[in-house]
């Protein structure tokens, strides 16, 4: 018990929790936007991978760190556009298209990486985003290292939560996006474009997912590794349901998840070899399944999620 308290009283633990949560915040927000507009985006796992690769590659080629973030976002939006074209105007299976996007984006990222760097055994590194020490606040005991020494991308993630919440809850655009995921006929009757709104939402959401991937190669680590996304995208899909499609709850869910993950890593070192490491590594996936099962009963899915809509067919 004292070990547990010691872990929780350590500022590094909370800093790690926030660091682990950051890519998930981007991913959950991205998935949330797509689903609010009525489109499930199972391309997320591959879009994470492609974003991680594109962001890192752009930075490595000299585009700068923010150039990398932009490259990742555009890559994500591109795969999002493909998913949207297949599922919105053509109305094809969102499950199958999403899985296809994941396979395509993942293998395209791996292929591009191997084609650009055929013979490297250890991946080349970039200078990643550094911690942004907030003046005065970062000097605070405990709170400083826990909360105020994060990279710019973590702050961007937080800003995105606020922005997505504000757009969805407080603007006519947000109202239209939510309506298109609940009742596309009503949106059409108002003279708004159901296709345009859905395609736009999927592209924006996919861009956010890709930035989440870019965080992995440009802030959490400084290089691209095969298999580095490791199910984070699928975890985001579970967290969206847990967050009942609300941006602030998405942030809370990602932070809880981050805290749990940081905790299991520390517990693993505490227990040192008494329990096989894989038990701890399984925990995040099992936790996501538990969260999904708990949330599923009362899940209030966007009503038109998974339902294609064709113009002129009521």
């Amino acid at each position, binding site marked *: 018990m004292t070990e547990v308290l010691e872990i929780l009283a350590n500022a590094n633990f909370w800093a790690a929790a926030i660091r682990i949560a950051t890519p998930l915040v981007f991913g959950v927000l991205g998935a949330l936007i797509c689903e609010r507009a009525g489109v499930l985006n199972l391309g997320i796992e591959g879009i994470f991978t492609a974003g991680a690769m594109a962001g890192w590659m752009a930075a490595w080629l000299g585009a700068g760190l923010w150039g990398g973030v932009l490259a990742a976002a555009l890559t994500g939006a591109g795969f999002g556009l493909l998913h949207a074209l297949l599922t919105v105007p053509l109305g094809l299976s969102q499950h199958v298209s999403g899985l296809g996007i994941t396979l395509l984006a993942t293998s395209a990222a791996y292929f591009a990486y191997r084609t650009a760097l055929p013979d490297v055994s250890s991946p080349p590194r970039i200078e990643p985003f550094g911690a942004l020490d907030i003046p005065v606040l970062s000097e605070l005991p405990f709170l400083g290292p826990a909360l105020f020494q994060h990279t710019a991308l973590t702050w961007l993630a937080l800003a995105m939560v606020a922005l997505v919440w504000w757009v969805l809850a407080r603007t006519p655009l947000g109202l239209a996006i939510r309506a298109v995921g609940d009742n596309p006929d009503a949106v059409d009757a108002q003279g708004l474009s159901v296709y345009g709104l859905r395609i736009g939402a999927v592209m924006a959401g996919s861009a956010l997912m890709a930035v989440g991937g870019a965080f992995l190669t440009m802030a959490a680590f400084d290089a691209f590794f095969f298999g580095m996304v490791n199910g984070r995208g*699928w975890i985001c899909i579970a967290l969206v349901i847990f967050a009942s499609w609300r941006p602030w709850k998405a942030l809370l869910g990602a932070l809880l998840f981050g805290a749990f993950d940081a905790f299991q890593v520390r517990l693993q070192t505490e227990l040192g070899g008494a329990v096989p490491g894989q038990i701890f590594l399984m925990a995040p996936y099992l936790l996501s399944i538990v969260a999904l099962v708990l949330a599923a009963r009362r899940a209030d899915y966007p009503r038109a999620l998974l339902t294609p809509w064709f113009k002129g067919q009521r």
Partner: protein
Amino acid sequence: MIRIEPRAPSPLVNLAVPVLAALVALLLAAIPLALAGADLGQAFALMWQGVFGSLFTVTETLTRAAPLILTGLAAAFAFRARLWNIGGEGQLYLGALAAVAVGTGAISAPPAVMIPLVLLAGALAGALAMALPALLKIRFGADEVVTTLLLNFVVLLFVQMMLEGPFKDPMGMGWPQSEPIVDAAMLPPLVERMRLHAGLLIGLVLALVLHVVLGRTAWGLRIRAVGENPAAAAHAGIPVGRTLIGAALVSGGLAGLAGVGEVAGLKGYLTADLSPGYGYAGIVVAMLARLSPLGVVAAALFIAGVFVGADSMSRAIGVSSYLADLVVAIALLTVLVGGFVSQYRLVRVRAGGEGA
């Protein structure tokens, strides 16, 4: 204006669409190949040679097709009931683990006992692995896409843990691998001095069996009814939950058998890199086959050919072997679009006039 109209179902279109989708996917490989600076003519020629060049290459393709037929059937069968089993990869590994558990010397018996035993163990393990997500779906409404995807990671970690723990081969020079499967439990080879094994025959027989089950039996009818419209099926008195569990058990069992074939037919022992994504590729196989069990055989042969041909070509000219995965991914998307073409047609509508 362009309007989308349903098209009358046609067997010719139904056959032509997946074939064309596969060909288009193969042709689209030209884009990444050109970007990688390869000579396209040479690349495609080498790919062809890599598949049809010799008896060895042909048997290699069939060897690759064996697990793909089984994971493809696993996906197709579940999808028919609209149960999204994306957990084929995990079920394959659990099947392999179960085969190792009973097949590495714990039991000694003649082949006539051992071979059915490892097959049964693997099928059972895979079936149980899929029963959990199916139960969570029926009981709690938890989306099986997400649970099966997440369980793939859990299972792989579990297999790694077993291979570093109780299943570790003490003679394995410290590598995390299982003890070898005893000779009596090994699936017999089909062609002398080649790696092709009886797992292929198991897949072929099961494809036929499932074809009959889905098309000719009351149970198959129930599965299709649940897949097409669960509400109507329930209204017609079909026990939807029980039907879904049945489909889940069969689907998981098929993927488990794929794992048995890979350890007891091909490798002879289990490592954590047994499958290069056969579970996920099985989804592509099922979709290319348009969920028909017999179609799965053809689709699996195509995907296996892509893997073998692209692998041998990329080794020869130094292009990344991820090209094969790229073609497989594109095939899933082209067949999806093909499905649209086979169900609908685009009709040009003149302003205020009839369709032209």
